[in-house]
């Protein structure tokens, strides 16, 4: 257990250092998409939510597996999709002759 724990600690610290270095001077425009992308990455907690099923054998355990997998899948899937939607703004600029109104925004009455 102890050697394993030390390995884990090593990996953790090195990953932290990579995390500190991996993003650098980001333009403010990319702050939100970047946050959303990082948010999607921690959706990998889905892997952990699946693995606890290996030892789950009580009703309480099953309930925890169900809620944890639902939460984690929502985090991962939703996170990637919404990030991609944000990043569509960087499509190569087309000279649109007329503004078409096929925007994705149809939901939500804006008046509040």
């Amino acid at each position, binding site marked *: 257990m*102890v050697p394993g*724990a030390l390995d*884990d600690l090593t990996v*953790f*610290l090195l*990953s932290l*250092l*990579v995390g*500190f270095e*991996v993003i650098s*001077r980001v*333009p403010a*425009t*990319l*702050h*939100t*998409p*970047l*946050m959303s*992308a*990082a*948010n*999607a*990455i*921690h959706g*990998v*907690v*889905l*892997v*952990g*939510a699946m693995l606890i*099923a290996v030892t*789950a*054998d009580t009703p*309480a*355990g099953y309930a925890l*597996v169900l809620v*944890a*997998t*639902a*939460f*984690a*899948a929502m*985090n991962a899937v939703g996170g990637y*999709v*919404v990030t991609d*939607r*944000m*990043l569509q*703004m*960087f499509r190569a*600029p087309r000279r649109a002759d007329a*503004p078409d109104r096929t*925007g994705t*925004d*149809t*939901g939500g009455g*804006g*008046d*509040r």
Partner: protein
Amino acid sequence: MSALDIAVRLVYLAAATCFVVGLHLMNSPATARRGNLLSAAGMWAAVVVTLAIILASGTVTPVGWTMIVLGTLIGTGAGLYAARRVAMTAMPQLVSLFNAVGGGAAALIGLHDYLRFGGPAGELTAAATTAVTLDVVIGTVAFSGSLVASAKLQGWVAGQPLLLPLRGAVNALVAAVIVVAAGFLLAGPGGALALLVMVLAALALGVLVVLAIGGADMPVVVSLLNACTGVAVAMAGFVIGNSMLIIAGALVGASGGILTKLMADAMNRPIRAILVGGYGTGDAAAALPGGAGEGVRTIDADDAAIRLAYAGRVIIVPGYGLAAAQAQHELHELAELLEERGVRIDYAIHPVAGRMPGHMNVLLAEAKVPYAQMREMDEINPEFNRADVALVVGANDVTNPAARRPGTPISGMPILDVDRAETVIVVKRSLGHGYAGIDNELYTDPRTRMYLADAKTALSALGTAVKTLVG
């Protein structure tokens, strides 16, 4: 080490590489989308190979399988539906919601392993119990805090900071409860009761801390909670001995921390001051000469249209009111009409225009506004004194000259220098306050004209007026 073990390790390594490289590609607009797709591919591989592990383990009961499949389907459905259908204006609260469920999942993993293996008679090592404690506390705080942040951004909870009496003492007490419960857990005699107390206290702490923070600081708070969830996921990795979670969690924790710092710097606010809360409740708000409503000059559509149509240069300042009214298309149409007449148009975008950095760019891009016309604050500020008209649509605090003076709640926040333009036309629904809850001195400036209407209605009317009056 079996062949499966080796394969799993290699796939996890590949997935971790995808996450790191994908995040790095997000540094630049040109490669950002590819980076996100690469990271999604890594996620996919990690999940598939995890399925192989639990198949090989052979200990998952039929009920367990049902729970995995059902949970994944529910989560995927909810995530897809929300991410696809929610309006772009509601994006920040959606990210916060996804962050909340991620933190919740991490905390549940710790809960499960403690209830199954921990406790006084359990077999968890001290190291694992420590990891459980950190996982549950950080994950739970991220869960409840992100939910409150999401509700604030959505407007379900008032944006003003909620400052309870004795706030500091209450928070310290709740934190002390967490520490004591954690002590019971680590020392052994705690068991499920100590765990329950710890979870409840952590839930309360997340709510209390975020409630005390003003709405304008929510982007920074969401980013910080995002980093917290990352750390919680890494701790969950320690609990179940899974390197994939440790790598991805630490990666998000650290990069999220850096990003939080970048965001706070963009708003010129120290993170510590934000966390202490209370931003947007200054007493200085009352110190406006004349009070709101007096000294304000209004303007109608025809007049405003003439000023815009005969200007040489117009700088448009979009803000949250534009986003809330979903009026970005109307704005772009008006801008195109003016451009056809030879008016030079620029969009001045404050780092936190909308509700988050980059939020406004997304909304404008969706309305097909050319990327080249979106100008960042530092670049456009020196140009306001050469603009004939600054057209402010639904932006408030980011244009308030009071920020240049010390002693106001927004002092020191970088603002757009719209008051240096020859004429300022402000489209606004009412003379109400912005997110910081203070009066805007710009509105009583002699060169400012207020056009009090909903952004969508106002911009359509302006477009019509430009067409009919000046053809």
